[in-house]
């Protein structure tokens, strides 16, 4: 075999690819579901924490800041491993999917809380005063005046951070979740050919390349318009 034949036979082996394509597609579905669950729960919790923080209850705010710092400092894989391999030692069994979802949700919650909070604090004090002077209550001011302005400037950093954390779903393969990478890894060990990995890489590019381009577009779109 020439070098080129050996290369294509290894990485673009049609027979192996055809055999494992269905598994990769299943993995693709699982990755998408996992990603959507993480985004929904992570952003909701992050916004919730940021809103709670506006009430300025000292001990509660300290707790929020600590939790946020904690999940910004810890590597996501360490959290996943702790939940999946650690908890059973204390008699609590989580599935790989739940462990990955919970870990990445906590990470996204932390990062998005920070971004939402920065957005809220960036809205000028005069906006609060103007709204309150017209008789709007605290929650009304927050909901109708402050949040709409805050959310707008948080969109670019939030998009990029969400994409980065969502890519972490590949870490779920470490805890036996048959997502794209998990399915690809299994395919390699059964067929003893790395073509499933090529398929996996392509699947990730299909999933994330448009998202990355979208993130870039959002970043330029929102950059200087306020």
């Amino acid at each position: 075999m020439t070098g080129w034949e050996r290369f294509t036979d290894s990485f673009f082996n049609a027979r192996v690819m055809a055999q494992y394509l269905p598994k990769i597609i299943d993995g693709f579905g699982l990755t998408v579901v996992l990603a959507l669950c993480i985004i929904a729960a992570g952003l909701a919790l992050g916004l919730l924490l940021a809103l709670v923080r506006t009430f300025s209850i000292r001990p509660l705010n300290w707790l929020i800041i600590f939790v946020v710092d904690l999940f910004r400092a810890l590597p996501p894989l360490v959290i996943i491993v702790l939940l999946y391999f650690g908890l059973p030692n204390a008699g609590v069994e989580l599935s790989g999917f739940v462990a990955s979802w919970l870990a990445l949700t906590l990470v996204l919650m932390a990062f998005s809380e920070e971004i939402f909070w920065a957005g809220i604090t960036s809205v000028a004090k005069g906006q609060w005063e103007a709204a309150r002077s017209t008789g709007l209550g605290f929650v009304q001011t927050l909901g109708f005046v402050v949040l709409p302005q805050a959310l707008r400037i948080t969109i670019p950093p939030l998009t990029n951070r969400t994409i980065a954390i969502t890519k972490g779903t590949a870490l779920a393969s470490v805890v036996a979740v048959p997502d794209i990478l998990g399915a690809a890894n299994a395919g390699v060990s059964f067929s003893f050919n790395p073509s499933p990995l090529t398929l996996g890489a392509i699947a990730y590019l299909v999933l994330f390349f448009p998202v990355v381009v979208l993130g870039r577009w959002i970043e330029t779109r929102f950059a200087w318009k306020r």
Partner: protein
Amino acid sequence: MDLFLDTFFNWQIVQEAWPILWQGLKATLLLSALVVPLGLLGGIILAVLTTFPSPWVKWPLRVWVDTFRALPPLVLLVFIFAGLPFVGVDVGPWGAVAIGFFLNTGAYYGEILRAGIESVPRGQLEAARSTGLTRGQTMTYVVLPQAVRNVLPDLISNTLEVVKLTSIASVVALPELLFEARQAQSVTYNATPIMAAAVAYFILLWPVVRLLSRLENRQLAGRG
């Protein structure tokens, strides 16, 4: 509660596992000291290349950068570590991590530095060129120092992510902190070593997180 404490905060296990965890921590620091400069180097190369106005340079570079931003780093790492040996290219765990981080981290640093370079006003370039400085000298002495300063929070933030990301090297059996912690856990049947690793990461990185959250707050607040 006792079971919980015994499982996650068992002092005796910490003492037993400490030598191996310490080895892992040192490997993590060494790994960070390797991949951060490597990624920065890749980023500087990409960012400087993108300043060439030709679309024949710009678009291939953009596709390159976006590809490695779209590919999860673990996928890239596994591909290099487990895929390439099939065609006779076996670079080992350290080699795989070095190449993977160079590509992935370089793309991120490259994007940040490009934004930094674009934030330096055109007049700076013109003033430097009008005094006879070459393109390269202008980049080195005038544009890059300002570019780096303008995007310092993003650079620090990315570096934090890179150090955290070194934990995926455990997947390719590189004996860094998380890998050693898992080894210790499998011998002791106790989660304390992983908890200890998590605490080590937190102690190491918390100051950086604090610093960043100050810088970011200031940045966003200044924009509003």
